[in-house]
């Protein structure tokens, strides 16, 4: 387990481990940066982060992309071996998640306080903002941690929330914010707007990697993301209070302080979103930035978002699986593992023991009623406890040989789903499906399942021996 104090320290580790590509040629903001962000995730599941330090139109700007964009970088973030299998990363993440809550550690000052701009703020001067996809309505900040608190419960640090919401930079200090009712910040804005008051927010840009993972997790209202980050990194999470009274990470490169303007909505979008298509236009709230603080020679971190898989699919993988697993396991201890790594869990794969016939279908139904499952889990595949749900070769073998569509496919009509599911009709309403790919057990006597093949004696010993020899050979 390892805690990184800031993005720079994590980049140093990636550099030392040959997981950071430094691009020293001069690049254009468009289309070079987005193209590189797309291309790096097409190469492999072990792709490095990429860092640019010569950006056309800027004297000194730096951009880093794909910091979370591989299982290798995720393993380093968790302080694990670089080749730690996804299944091991999942169980380690679950182990830490179950320690919640950790502690916040309050500091009086931070490196991001070094440079302050509180007059004539121009975000385009301060950050090398660029277009991600050609149909985007403008220039977006898409990987920032946005902090807000409930104006009706201002001194309660547990309802202070940290989330990642896309921000369209519409003016020098004016942003659009995609804020939908399921986000905790929507509760805060609702209370501020009932009072007719602006909602203070802080936007922390370019952070050490664990807070981005915590910020993009589905947790219960009142579960502090900083206290979640603390258990995930195994150390109290350091924060500093901003001038507008919010806690932000000690290690951020930039901190923007501003307000969501009360009772205003304005056209925003479209934006290329996580299901691999554009979001369409909406009228969303508007933010005005009053003050920007940043480190000297700041690094700007962004995330290319495209048709899966891109960086977001890695960043929002294990952190989506873990809460769902813990919630399910509480009611159904037979559950062995949960994979919700595809498109934020529109498909969920669960491996489970079965107490009796029909049990797997009941597990599938329960997945759909977890907090995250209510908006995702459109298709649930249930497999035997011997199948690793993170290994698609095993899952497809189970679906290929265990499923008889006559009785193993259950369709539930007209349930809820995230509005961004493009197949939903009307948006937000969809049928859902459970695929029971488990071996039937009594009293379910369907099929003619005989004994399954197992591995020859001593296969485990040989695997360890051959793996060590292979590593030696490849040194």
């Amino acid at each position, binding site marked *: 387990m390892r805690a990184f104090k800031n993005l720079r320290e994590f980049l140093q580790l990636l550099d030392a481990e040959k997981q950071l590509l430094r691009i020293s040629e001069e690049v254009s903001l468009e289309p070079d940066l987005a193209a590189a962000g797309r291309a790096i995730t097409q190469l492999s599941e072990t792709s490095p982060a990429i860092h640019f330090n010569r950006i056309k139109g800027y004297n000194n700007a730096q951009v880093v992309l794909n910091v979370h964009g591989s299982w290798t970088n995720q393993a380093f973030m968790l302080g694990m071996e670089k080749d730690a299998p996804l299944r091991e990363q999942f169980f380690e993440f679950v182990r830490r998640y179950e320690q919640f809550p950790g502690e916040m550690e309050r500091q009086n000052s931070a490196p991001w306080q070094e440079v302050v701009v509180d007059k004539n703020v121009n975000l385009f001067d301060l950050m090398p903002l660029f277009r991600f996809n050609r*149909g985007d309505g403008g220039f977006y900040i898409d990987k920032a941690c946005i902090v807000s608190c409930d104006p009706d419960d201002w001194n309660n640090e547990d309802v202070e929330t940290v989330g990642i919401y896309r921000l369209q930079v*519409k003016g020098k200090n004016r942003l659009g914010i995609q804020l939908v009712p399921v986000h905790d910040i929507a509760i805060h804005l609702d209370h501020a707007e009932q009072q007719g008051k602006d909602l203070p927010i802080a936007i922390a840009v370019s952070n050490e990697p664990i807070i981005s993972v915590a910020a993009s997790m589905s947790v219960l209202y009142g579960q502090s993301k900083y206290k979640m980050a603390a258990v995930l990194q195994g150390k109290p999470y350091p924060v500093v209070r901003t001038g507008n009274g919010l806690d932000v990470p000690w290690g951020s490169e930039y901190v923007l302080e501003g307000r969501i303007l009360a009772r205003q909505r304005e056209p925003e979008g479209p934006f290329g979103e996580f299901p691999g298509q554009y979001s369409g236009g909406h009228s969303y709230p508007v933010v005005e930035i009053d003050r920007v603080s940043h480190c000297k020679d700041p690094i700007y971190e962004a995330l290319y978002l495209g048709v899966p898989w891109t960086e977001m699919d890695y960043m929002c993988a294990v952190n989506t699986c873990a809460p769902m697993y813990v919630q399910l396991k509480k009611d159904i201890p037979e559950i062995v593992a949960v994979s919700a790594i595809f498109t934020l869990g529109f498909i969920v794969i669960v491996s489970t023991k079965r107490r009796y016939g029909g049990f797997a279908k009941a597990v599938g139904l329960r997945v759909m009623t977890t907090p995250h499952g209510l908006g995702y889990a459109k298709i649930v595949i249930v497999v035997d406890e011997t199948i690793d749900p993170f290994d698609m070769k095993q899952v497809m073998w189970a679906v290929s040989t265990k499923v008889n569509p006559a009785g193993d496919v259950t369709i539930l009509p007209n349930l809820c789903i995230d509005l961004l599911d493009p197949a939903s009709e009307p948006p937000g309403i969809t049928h859902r499906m459970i695929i029971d790919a488990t071996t039937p057990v009594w009293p379910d006597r369907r099929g003619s399942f005989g004994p399954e093949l197992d591995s020859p004696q001593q296969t485990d010993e040989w695997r360890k021996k051959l793996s060590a020899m292979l590593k030696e050979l490849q040194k």
Partner: protein
Amino acid sequence: MSRSEDTKGLVCPRCRSEAIEVLTNSPVKGVWTIYSCKTCIYAWRSTEPEENTNPDKYPESFQLKAEDLAKFPRIPTIPALRRS
């Protein structure tokens, strides 16, 4: 290219409005200018590929009409003011 404040003759690639303003110029003088449409809030950089800067090359599927903006869903709903 010099530092630009001039929008004469510019048309929004997305909605074809002529109400265009200079949003900002590059910190290194003369490299690029960002323009913004006052009607639909689309913004583009002068150095982007033509698909994003030229109204005749802008992809049809992303084009907008000014009247479409009023049809955008307003999210989240604005609550009633509390009575003090």
